[in-house]
């Protein structure tokens, strides 16, 4: 139990998907102009990462590994992810129409979010069992959502700040993200202590 908790904290905070592993930066810069949009994107991505990691784990262990098809991994995983996104879209539309209204435009974009493929590939590299890999995927995506919301909060303040014209837009965003990454480096002490 303690191992699981430490692993999850490590995946969410210490090796944060965005700030330490540099995955999913397109959505990190693209949809963090408002907090509610960032939270919605985080929620949808959390769902997709968890579901597609479970599916990718099954594909890897029951299809690719036994038949020696490792070289097809990239192609199959991206197909699994695209289907998982489609499945998420259908489920959300059926279960909660208001949530679907809110997430609508962001859902298809998740296919090309490299955090999804990145986490799936990390799981294969780490040779984790089903339980560990599902928890790892979930914790990673919670870390992703957390950073999305924090950064969106900062950018809402940034929108009213007087930024020099040359720095306006993405560059000041990168510099703020750099400070945020520095702050998150403080978590790296947790894994050893």
């Amino acid at each position, binding site marked *: 139990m303690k191992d699981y908790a430490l692993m999850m904290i490590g995946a969410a905070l210490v090796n944060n998907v965005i700030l330490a592993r540099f995955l999913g930066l397109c959505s990190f810069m693209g949809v963090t102009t408002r907090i509610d949009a960032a939270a919605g994107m985080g929620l949808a991505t959390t769902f997709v990462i968890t579901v597609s990691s479970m599916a990718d784990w099954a594909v890897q262990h029951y299809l690719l590994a036994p038949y020696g098809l490792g070289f097809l991994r*990239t192609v199959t995983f991206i197909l699994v992810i695209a289907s998982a996104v489609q499945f998420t879209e259908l489920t959300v539309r059926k279960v909660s129409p208001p949530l679907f209204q809110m997430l609508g435009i962001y859902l298809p974009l998740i296919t090309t979010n490299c955090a999804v493929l990145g986490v799936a590939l990390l799981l294969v590299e780490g040779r984790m069992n089903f339980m560990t890999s599902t928890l790892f995927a979930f914790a990673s995506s919670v870390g992703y959502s957390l950073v999305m919301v924090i950064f969106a909060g900062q950018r809402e303040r940034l929108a009213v700040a007087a930024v020099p014209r040359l720095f306006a837009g993405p560059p000041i965003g990168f510099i703020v993200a750099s400070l945020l990454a520095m702050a998150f480096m403080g978590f790296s002490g947790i894994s050893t202590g």
Partner: protein
Amino acid sequence: MSNNAYTRIVRDGLWDNNGVFSMLLGMCPTMAMTTSATNGFGMGLATAAVMAASSLLVATFRNHISQEVRIPVFILIVATMVTLVDLAMNAWMHELYKVLGLFIPLIVSNCLPLARLEAFAAKAPIVPAFVDGLCMGLGFTIALTAIGAVREIIGSGTLFADASLLLGPSFKFMELRLLPASMGVLMMILPPGGFLVTGLMVVGKRLLDLRAGKEIQMAGAHGIA
């Protein structure tokens, strides 16, 4: 197509509409693989190979790919090219392959190849599409090498360290030590340095464009205001 049109494509790809500094696409490898100039160079070349090959394929089959399913088809073509590059690098450039690791398969979900396929290769004849893919890829390589060089010089005081190990013995001449090792600022090699250097280099490109009397692009391809 006239010579002029090709000059335009090359200029756009390499500088004017540079994938990293102007369109802000493909940010993940840009930050993650620029801890040294050599890594950035290798990552850039792998991406350029994928982009040139997939642009060529998409342009060849552009009349057979129907509008409704074009995005999945593009993704599958890119994924196939990435698998080829992945296997080729594993076989012939194994040291570099180990360094780039996860980010070779992740070229699939890099927005830059997909954006160029959608915006250019899907509507262009074969040769211009190939030239566009290649030049956009080389522009990406230049950007990654430049960011990598800045981070490496400030972070560890070297330039193109390990080039002979990663790219082959004939690149030995590129390895330089510009500053003593004790002057290295570790922060530049770590994640915050990636964000900082990229942000400042986007500003640098805007400054140069402004000097040249061009309109500066305020937003990236994502339309960030």
